[in-house]
């Protein structure tokens, strides 16, 4: 029974995890990731780490809600209404993934670990609570403090009107040569900025192939790496997609 559940959950977890990087719709990607987390949470419950499983459920849900918003804010074509494939160095990445997985798998198969299963009767949640507020109090507290610091600095980082002047200050690229002028935000692209022409070339080598969206040739897209940002996704039109969605994309960012 438990084994069946485990198989189901793990297959679902891995499958949805794979799907995250395969689907076109950003929302689907986000919530596939959430699904993967939920399945892992379920596996945790099967592993008798009941509280951890449910907490993972809860935490990841909220986290992914936020993630979904960001996805739609920062991706072009969030609804995935056009097929698109925005990856680089795909072969290397795949190889690396396989190597990593294989490495861990080898460890899992060949290493021999001590066999000391948790007994099913123990009240793991209560134990965890006592541990958190007892022996590991220091760890717990430091996690809390770290999270607080995280809140503070993420607010500082992301606030439009930081303490160093208003948002516009931040939205202009710093001068690339000392004493140089501040160029307006819309012609940010500067060959020097990315280390010269051959920079472009090798980016070309890498990305041209992989990057093509809805048939429209993205030849310009690789310097798009720099250039892309310039165009506002809100307005960016993609072959034959309903402007309605894009407007939301744009509007979400503006609002």
């Amino acid at each position, binding site marked *: 029974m438990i084994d069946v559940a485990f198989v189901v959950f*793990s297959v679902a*977890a891995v499958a949805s995890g794979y799907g995250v*990087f395969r689907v076109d719709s950003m929302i689907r*990607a*986000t919530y596939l*990731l959430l699904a993967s*987390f939920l399945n*892992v949470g379920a*596996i945790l419950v099967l*592993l008798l*780490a009941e509280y951890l499983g449910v*907490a*993972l459920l809860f*935490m990841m849900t909220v986290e992914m809600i*936020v993630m979904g918003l*960001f996805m739609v804010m*920062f*991706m072009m074509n969030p609804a995935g209404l056009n097929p698109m494939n925005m*990856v*680089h*160095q795909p072969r290397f*990445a*795949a190889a690396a*993934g*396989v190597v*990593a*997985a294989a*490495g*861990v798998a080898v460890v*899992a*198969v060949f290493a021999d670990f001590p*066999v*000391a*299963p*948790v*007994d099913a009767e123990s009240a*793991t949640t209560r*134990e*965890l609570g006592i*541990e*958190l507020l007892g022996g*590991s109090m220091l*760890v717990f507290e430091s*996690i809390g403090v770290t*999270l607080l610091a*995280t809140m503070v600095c*993420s607010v500082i*980082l992301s606030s439009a009107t930081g303490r160093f002047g208003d*948002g516009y200050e931040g939205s202009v*690229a710093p001068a*690339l040569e000392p004493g140089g002028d501040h160029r307006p935000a819309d012609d*940010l692209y500067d060959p020097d*900025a990315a*280390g010269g022409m051959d920079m472009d070339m090798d*980016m070309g080598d890498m*990305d041209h192939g992989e990057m093509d969206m809805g048939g429209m040739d993205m030849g310009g897209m690789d310097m*798009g*790496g*720099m250039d892309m*940002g310039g165009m506002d996704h809100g307005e960016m039109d993609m072959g034959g997609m309903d402007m309605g969605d894009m407007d939301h994309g744009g509007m979400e960012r503006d609002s």
Partner: protein
Amino acid sequence: MNLMTVLLVAAALIGVGVWGALAQQTFVMLMMGIEMMLNGVILAVAGFWAFAGAGLPKGQVLVILSMAVMAIELAIGFALVTAVYRARQADMTEGIGSLKG
């Protein structure tokens, strides 16, 4: 369900995460890859706790620690994405190629 199987699932998750983090162009997708890796890590830790750790509470604490790491990574990541977008109008890793401020 034993330690080996759990670790194998974790391995698969980590592999997918590495693949995603290396292959994706958008910062947010990239962060998703990292999340996926941590997902596998959490699973592995829980597996060790359940099968090889004699259910020591400290193992669960480790899981909670990695959850916290995940949360922090996400928060700081999003903040950075926003800041980078403000500074460079860039949402892809190619967008911040310049080596100066």
